[in-house]
């Protein structure tokens, strides 16, 4: 009886430190993730996201091409939308010309 108690005690004593360490590591990882996320949000950015800006140019040009094709085939072309698409693409192009990181 006494031996059994002793054994259980020994196992507990061996597991307990590991448990504490594991919980500690988990907490650290959680805190690290929270802090890096917050840092990213607050960090001063040197410029706009270049990849996104470039891909957006393509998106606007494709939208313009689509609209132009539609207008070509339609008897009553929606020229207002076509103009808007053109203006959007134009504005994007100017952006590349002048933005920090591109200019």
């Amino acid at each position, binding site marked *: 009886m006494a031996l059994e108690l002793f054994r259980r005690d020994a196992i507990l004593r061996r597991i307990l430190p590991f448990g504490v360490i594991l919980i500690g590591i988990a907490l650290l990882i959680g805190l690290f993730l929270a802090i890096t996320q917050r840092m990213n949000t607050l960090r001063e950015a040197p410029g706009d996201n270049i990849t996104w800006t470039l891909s957006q140019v393509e998106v606007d040009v494709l939208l313009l091409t689509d609209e132009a094709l539609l207008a070509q085939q339609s008897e009553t072309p929606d020229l207002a939308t076509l103009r808007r698409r053109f203006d*959007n693409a134009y504005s994007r192009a100017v952006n590349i010309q002048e933005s920090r990181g591109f200019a």
Partner: protein
Amino acid sequence: MYMNSTLCALSLASGLATAGLAEQLPAPSGEVLLTLSGALANETADGVVSLDREMLENMETVEFTTSTIWMEDEVTFTGVPLSDVLDYAGAQGDEISAVALNDYKIEIPVSEIEESSPIIAYLMNGEPMSRRNKGPLWIVYDYDSDAKYRSEVIYSRSIWQLDRIVSNN
């Protein structure tokens, strides 16, 4: 007479329910530049609030000169605080979505909209902005005034060719 008083009571009740009486705003006479919709207390017609250039010009203006990441030189922006426009429309949501002419859409929590920042700029260097150069409306911050306005989140909220704003609950 009976109908009238019922209507009155109804509108009063709905007004009280939305904490403030719904107000009919004057309709814009010029070309509509900005349309607000969603959870609004006021309306110009059909539950939306539309604004033209003249109405924006008649509101209290804010002007500042700042450098931006989108242009080489410093520019001067003139516009109205976003918070004033939201107040004018009686926006009640906790968050707004701002949508551009190319359907680019961003969300700004109302708690992060300051009294005079950002502004909805309608003039750049004293001139109206064309659609071909980020106009006619652009949500901008005074980037040079504080490092907190130079984060990626703020840049992403600086939406140009602004077309409409939706107040979300």
